[in-house]
């Protein structure tokens, strides 16, 4: 009796293994697409629908110092420490790829700086979320796969210390130990065009909470983007580093 049961169990396992292999082959699984390549559309598949294409790709360093080249096969431009000085992992936003090299946005002045890194020294992740800030409306909109999720009221820079416009990304996430930034503060790859230093830092723009809730919705900051502490907490629990943020 035991022999019969054993035979049936083992047979079942083997047949499931065999059939699952057949099913895999029959389904014609597609190779995972390059994060920078168009995802092929599948129209005749009986499986689940293909996920929407990512809105961006982040590259997180796997080495203690990441060498950045000025161009493909060109001279060394700079070397970035990993982790970053703030203690978080060095994560960059990929602009484009050329074979096994990646052009990335750099968290460095001037705004919009780019360089090339070896793909073998980073881990890539697709990004679903993106942010869009309006300094005119003092709003921040959260998108997932380019579909609007929510819009928040924020504070942005004054006329004298404006929030810079352009395409940036989230470089780090701090749980600030000093007052004024609320429970969480994202660093951006953007830098103030007016302040070359601030509070011991290099004039880097942040996206953070605040101790001054009354300032939300107004142009009152030194360039940072302030949110309510509840809203920044919401974003901190969902956004990966590298998430694109457009300020306009």
């Amino acid at each position: 009796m035991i022999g019969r049961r054993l035979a049936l169990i083992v047979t079942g396992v083997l047949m499931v293994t065999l059939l699952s292999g057949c099913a895999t082959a029959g389904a014609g699984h597609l190779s995972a697409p390059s994060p920078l390549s168009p995802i092929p559309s599948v129209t005749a598949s009986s499986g689940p629908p293909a996920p929407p294409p990512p809105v961006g790709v982040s590259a997180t360093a796997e080495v203690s110092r990441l060498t950045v080249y000025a161009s493909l096969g060109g001279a060394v431009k700079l070397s970035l420490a990993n982790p970053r000085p703030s203690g978080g992992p060095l994560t960059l936003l990929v602009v484009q790829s050329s074979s096994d090299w990646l052009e990335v946005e750099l968290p460095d002045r001037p705004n919009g700086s780019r360089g090339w890194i070896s793909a073998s020294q980073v881990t890539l992740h697709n990004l679903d979320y993106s942010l869009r800030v309006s300094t005119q409306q003092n709003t921040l909109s959260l998108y997932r796969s380019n579909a609007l999720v929510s819009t928040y009221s924020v504070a942005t820079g004054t006329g004298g210390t404006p929030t810079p416009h352009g395409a940036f990304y989230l470089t780090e996430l701090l749980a600030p130990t000093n007052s004024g930034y609320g429970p969480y503060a994202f660093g951006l790859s953007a830098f103030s065009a007016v302040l070359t230093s601030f509070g011991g830092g290099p004039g880097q723009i942040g996206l953070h909470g605040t101790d001054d809730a009354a300032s939300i919705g107004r142009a009152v900051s030194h360039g940072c983007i302030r949110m309510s502490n509840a809203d920044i907490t919401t974003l901190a629990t969902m956004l990966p580093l590298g998430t694109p943020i457009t300020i306009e």
Partner: protein
Amino acid sequence: MTRSRRRHLLPVFVALGLVVSVSLTAIPDSHPALAAESPVGLGNAGSFAVLGASTVTNTGPTVVSGDLGVNAGSAVTGFPPGIVTNGAQHVTDTLSGLAQQDLVTAYNDAAGRTPTTSGLTALDGMTLVPGVYSGGALTLGGNLTLNGSATGVFIFQATSTLIAGSTSHVLFSGGAGPCNVFWQVASSATLQTAADFSGTIMALTSVTAATGAKITGRLLARTGGVTMDTNVITRPTACSVASVGTPATPVPGRARFTG
């Protein structure tokens, strides 16, 4: 063993036989891989579709998709009429030097993997699952089917030559693809006229692609040259598998943003 027990175990043997017949067609004495192989890291050599040491020589309208390089030789001939797309020529420059260094590492990595199956010669008609396959002089005169998932890795070790005949084809099933196919050749590789070949060839000496041979992969030679004639050589792309990023982990610290 009693007749009753033999009857009970019969379905096991039938199922086992089906699995083996599907997985390892025409390799009666081989066995499946015990552990999944990781891909061979190519480093800077990964961007090259063609990389030679002494020379890179072409005849006819060859199309190379990917970088083309030579190091430490300086002779690249036949471009044009050959063309390089999705890449550039690197003639004994920094990148081709780094690529040759990384090719040595990759070659040694592939050569050092423990074979799943040894003693192979002709690969014709085989259907193989991911693993490491070794032999002396490997030949392919017909179809070779590589069956596995998109992450399945196939490593072939030839302690002598690799010759793919004019009617040879490397086929894929189950999601497997040329990204993770590696041919480590201890002497030279030859792809004969009109061969349809896939995978990254890492030859200790030289690689020759005869007239009309089509390669989805790379032709990499450590010490000798790469010779081409009216070929289409396409470096595999879409090899990176990226998962979706997870929420950032906050780091306690003093914020120094502009506020």
